[in-house]
């Protein structure tokens, strides 16, 4: 961009700025690697557009306050909150909103101390580490424990609030947690709610999306479904969804891990045959269908589905 002063008549090239920032590349990657999550992607696109337009406005000396980008991700287990947070750090770095673009992922343990006077230094240390990047607080509702009024979590929240207000240029705070618990958390901390501009809800995945996710996961690990296995897995997903403790993409990953175990076992059982590369890569229908979900429609207590 030229450093010359711009008059009212000067035109700016949004397209050139867009190309220069490489945002499209990041957004494409997001589209490729994250299945579904429509509202999340829309919001990220909006934020990207806002930051880009803001940068153009700066050329006309149209100063506006730095937009507050603190976010709250809510959604059921396994809907990709952490994955998106990681991606967010990268996107904000590209857009020049944060300087370093690293993600510091913490939970209550890292913020709250064990005795009086321990919490403030601990929280401040974490905040300082996250400066120039993104502070991701997983299970943020644990910070506030209403049943114990002497809990130190409140102290930590107060420091966070202060930092979120005063050091807006230095770091972005992302809270994550399950929808209803986060709502409770915000109800008891209205200050927190108002300081977070973006509340993004992660929807549950549909069966098609879960199948696409499964295939993507396998591809990154150099595995593939045979066509029968794919059909079997498509049958498996709705069955598994009906059972308890279904954690979206995480459950899919676990199911695939178990299928890999069975595949290894199957190959081991047929040792006398010579194997090709494709055999080592392919999950067969029997690896999927051996799951307990098909046989009895139930899980073990430890969540293991294999018939013993």
């Amino acid at each position, binding site marked *: 961009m030229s450093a010359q002063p711009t008059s009212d008549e000067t035109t700016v090239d949004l397209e050139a700025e867009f190309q220069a920032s490489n945002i499209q590349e990041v957004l494409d990657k997001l589209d490729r690697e994250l299945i579904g999550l429509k509202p999340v992607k829309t919001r990220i696109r909006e934020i990207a557009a806002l930051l880009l337009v803001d940068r153009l406005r700066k050329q006309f000396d149209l100063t506006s306050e730095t937009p507050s980008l603190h976010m709250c991700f809510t959604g059921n287990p396994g809907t990709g909150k952490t994955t998106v947070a990681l991606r967010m750090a990268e996107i904000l770095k590209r857009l020049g909103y944060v*300087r*370093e673009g*690293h993600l510091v992922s913490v939970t209550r343990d890292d913020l709250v101390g064990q005795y009086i006077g321990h919490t403030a*230094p601990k929280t401040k*240390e974490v*905040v*300082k*580490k996250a*400066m*120039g*990047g993104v502070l991701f607080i997983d299970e943020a509702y644990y910070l506030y424990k209403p049943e114990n009024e002497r809990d130190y979590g409140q102290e930590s929240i107060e420091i966070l609030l202060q930092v979120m207000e005063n*050091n807006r*240029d*230095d*770091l972005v705070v992302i809270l994550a947690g399950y929808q209803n618990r986060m709502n409770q958390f915000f109800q008891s901390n209205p200050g927190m709610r108002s300081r977070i501009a973006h509340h993004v809800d992660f929807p549950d995945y549909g069966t098609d999306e879960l199948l696409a996710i499964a295939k993507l996961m396998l591809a990154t690990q150099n595995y593939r479904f045979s066509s029968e296995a794919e059909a079997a897995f498509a049958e498996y997903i709705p069955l598994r969804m009906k059972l308890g403790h279904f954690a979206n993409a995480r459950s899919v990953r676990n199911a695939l891990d178990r299928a890999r175990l069975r595949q290894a076992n199957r190959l081991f059982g047929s040792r006398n045959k010579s194997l090709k590369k494709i055999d080592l890569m392919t999950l067969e229908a029997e690896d999927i269908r051996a799951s307990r979900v098909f046989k009895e429609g139930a899980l073990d207590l430890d969540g293991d589905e294999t018939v013993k």
Partner: protein
Amino acid sequence: MMTNPNGIVTQGQFSFLPPLTDEQITKQLKYALSKGWATSVEYTDDPHPRNTYWEMFGPPMFDLKDPAGILMEINNCRKTFPNHYIRVMAFSSVRGVESPTMSYIVNRPKNEPGFGLVRQEADGRNIRYTIHSYATDKPEGERY
């Protein structure tokens, strides 16, 4: 001070230069972070050159990525001790070095009275010299 044209205490890096601005400090902090050094903020009101151990303002800061956090701590210290000497130290933990690698003053009292030369008559008409800070005549905390 006797040989110092500005009449200010000169210790550590950059002390003959005009006071560092926040941007300049940020650049120095960035350099220290790029080397992986742990940075700490310390303060004192005893300017004697042999006073090496200053009070720590909070623990040293490890694993930081961005200077903003350290600058925040420096500004906190300036607010708490506006009339003290404040220095920033960088410590290298590399094996074989394991010692401070940077040290520079980022805050000093408005008025530095300087040092007097003290002569002591020793045995056989020998003279022993030492320096004495006028500021330390007053008790700690009331010096500047």
